[in-house]
């Protein structure tokens, strides 16, 4: 299929069918985790466009997710009966606007200074919610009602599966749109700016505008993810959007393979599932409860370090070189270059 639009659409529809079928196979808790991966992927995909493709490092995407989540919960506080699509759209718009403002400032900053500014955003913004507790609910946060499946799906349709469907739909729409964006002319401009600003500028690209655009797209994704995250957790509280969320997003895209959307999928899966798996493992080891409760954080750190050391270009990069290696060896089976132990 030469037409990328058609190719992306086919992949997304196929993924949708497979994932929806999987939600029937698994139990409710696994569906819940799948929803988590999908939500996390939306934000990670947005960050991939910004950091991976456009080369702007952001440590503040957790804060952008918070903007989306608070938009949703404030809307729901006023109008609890809104259909779910409206808070989601509102979150995308408000976070996109915030992203434009931050993007204008960020377009002036490079390297550690951009990291510092977005770090300040990640740490400072959740504190606003604490300081203005009367509006934002302070440390307790704002409750978000669980989305209930429409009655057409039957009375005993689990809420988790419905949430997983919504999250999967949102994730695949995001994937489709971003894949088209990245593979098109805009994607070429984004990459050109990342590679060499001066050269891009000489080629007639408005560097600042492209950088702001990347921030807006990325922020809109973070807003959507934040809004869904609020539904997923059932609560919007400052502690849910600390710096650790931003760092996990970054870990996801780098571990998956920087700059690639499929890498973001792999990374999101690893980053969301690893803590669950590690907790289960630690629970099975018969350790004292003190150590068992606290070990996951340390083990998660080990996972990050080991994965990065093993695959400096991310899992996607490792798979890609493996694929190339396999192809070369298949074509020339007598090639002496690669030993099996390497």
């Amino acid at each position, binding site marked *: 299929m030469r037409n990328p639009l058609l190719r992306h659409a086919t992949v997304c529809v196929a993924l949708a069918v497979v994932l929806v079928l999987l939600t029937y196979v698994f139990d409710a808790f696994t569906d819940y985790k799948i929803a988590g991966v999908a939500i996390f992927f939306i934000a990670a995909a947005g960050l991939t466009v910004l950091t991976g493709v456009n080369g702007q490092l952001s440590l503040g995407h957790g804060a952008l997710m918070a903007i989306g989540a608070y938009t949703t919960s404030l809307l729901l506080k006023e109008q609890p009966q809104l259909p779910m699509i409206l808070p989601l759209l509102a979150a995308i718009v408000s976070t996109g606007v915030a992203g434009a403002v931050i993007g204008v400032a960020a377009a002036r900053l490079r390297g550690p200074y951009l990291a510092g500014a977005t770090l300040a955003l990640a740490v400072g913004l959740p504190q606003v919610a604490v300081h203005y507790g009367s509006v934002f609910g302070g440390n307790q946060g704002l409750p978000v009602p669980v989305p209930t499946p429409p009655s057409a799906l039957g009375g005993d349709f689990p809420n988790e599966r419905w949430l997983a469907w919504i999250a999967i739909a949102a994730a695949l729409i995001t994937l489709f749109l971003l894949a088209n964006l990245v593979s098109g002319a805009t994607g070429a401009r984004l990459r050109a700016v990342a590679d060499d600003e001066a050269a891009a500028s000489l080629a007639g690209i408005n560097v*600042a505008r492209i950088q702001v655009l990347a921030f807006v797209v990325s922020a809109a994704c973070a807003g959507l993810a934040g809004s869904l995250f609020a539904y997923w957790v059932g609560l919007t509280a400052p502690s849910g959007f600390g710096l650790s969320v931003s760092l996990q997003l*970054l870990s996801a895209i780098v571990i998956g393979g920087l700059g690639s959307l499929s890498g973001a999928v792999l990374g999101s899966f690893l980053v969301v599932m690893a803590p669950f798996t590690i907790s289960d493992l630690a629970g099975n080891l018969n350790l004292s409860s003190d150590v068992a409760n606290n070990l996951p954080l340390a083990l998660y750190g080990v996972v990050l370090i080991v994965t990065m050391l093993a695959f*400096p270009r991310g899992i996607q990069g490792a798979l890609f070189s493996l694929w190339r290696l396999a192809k070369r060896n298949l074509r020339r089976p007598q090639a002496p270059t690669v030993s099996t132990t390497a």
Partner: protein
Amino acid sequence: MTQESVGVGPTQPLGEAPAPSPRRERKAALLVAPEGLIARHRGSGVMARTAVPAFRTTYGFISHNFPAIIMIGILASVLGVLAQGGPTLMGNQMRNALVLGAIYALIAIGYTMVYGIIELINFAHGDVFTLSGFYAFLIADHFGINKLAASSGFGLLVALVVIFAVSMLLAGITGVLIERVAYRRLRDAPRLAPLITAIGVSFLIEGFMLAFFGPDNVTTHQASWINGNAFTLGAVAVRWTDLFVLGMALVLMFALGAFVTRTRLGKAMRSTAQDRQAALICGININRTIATTFFIGSALAAAGAIIYSINYGSLKWNLGFHVGIIAFTAAVLGGIGNIVGAGIGGFLIGMIYVFGGSLAGGAWSESLIFAILVLILTFRPVGLFGVDVASRS
């Protein structure tokens, strides 16, 4: 033409500030990554190009006088505290600010050195700070150092020397180990890869401390080592602890300054920071130099942690996270990569934290720090001192 002469750019300073010559700037790149600097002259700045000239002039004015504006702001808040609570409050807060600033300065130096030499924001640095505080705590509790410190004046001296020397050594080894395991192999990997391992190391150390020391505050006994007041200024009591803490921090910082500027290894560090390839060609052992940088940075963080526990008497597993972020702000304030800037930035952040917090209410202290960070990055992304203070080569 006339409009251009009104517009102010980095090479066209207003008033008395002399324009740094390009030659001096190049020489001055002590521990600064060139791509970290803003590419304003390339015209990539949105504000610089789209804004009206009047706005541009104002922007340029603020940008160029930013150090003065920060100083005036700090002075105003000091005077504000004076007006609010009289000289006693001001004196007490000044003491608090200096002690806090010393701690931030010691940590900020570690951030700035590591960034300068391998362009990595070492997210694990704040946790190395906490971990070395726990090293000191364990040493003091398990080897009878606490008893020794309480026995006599001489015993106290020995106890302090032992605790500083051993903890700093252990912390230095920890830092070198972290670099060896988590960063060295990724030196030529994509730039974000070591950042992720740094986050991993941070989680690992935090999880380790959480598992061994629990989720609550741990009381350390160093707080009772040094007792009594040295002297009183009016109603402000200056404790021996304060003098010791401040003196220790300053001694360490000046020792570091001497090391970096006067020794062969210091020279190797500066040249590695400037251009790793060129340093390699000149026969500098890059691995040893970078390891030394981590050793020194972590050892200084350990000194900061001991000072912290002497002054505040408690530690917590996630303490380094917050202290680390604020110290990173101090490093950016001083111009990241600039060691002297980080030291001064630490003290300034201490002043802003204490006096700003005193005026605005303690809950706002941290928000204030981050507001300052945003202001710095908006108006003067290279930090207060840019690249030229640290150039002594």
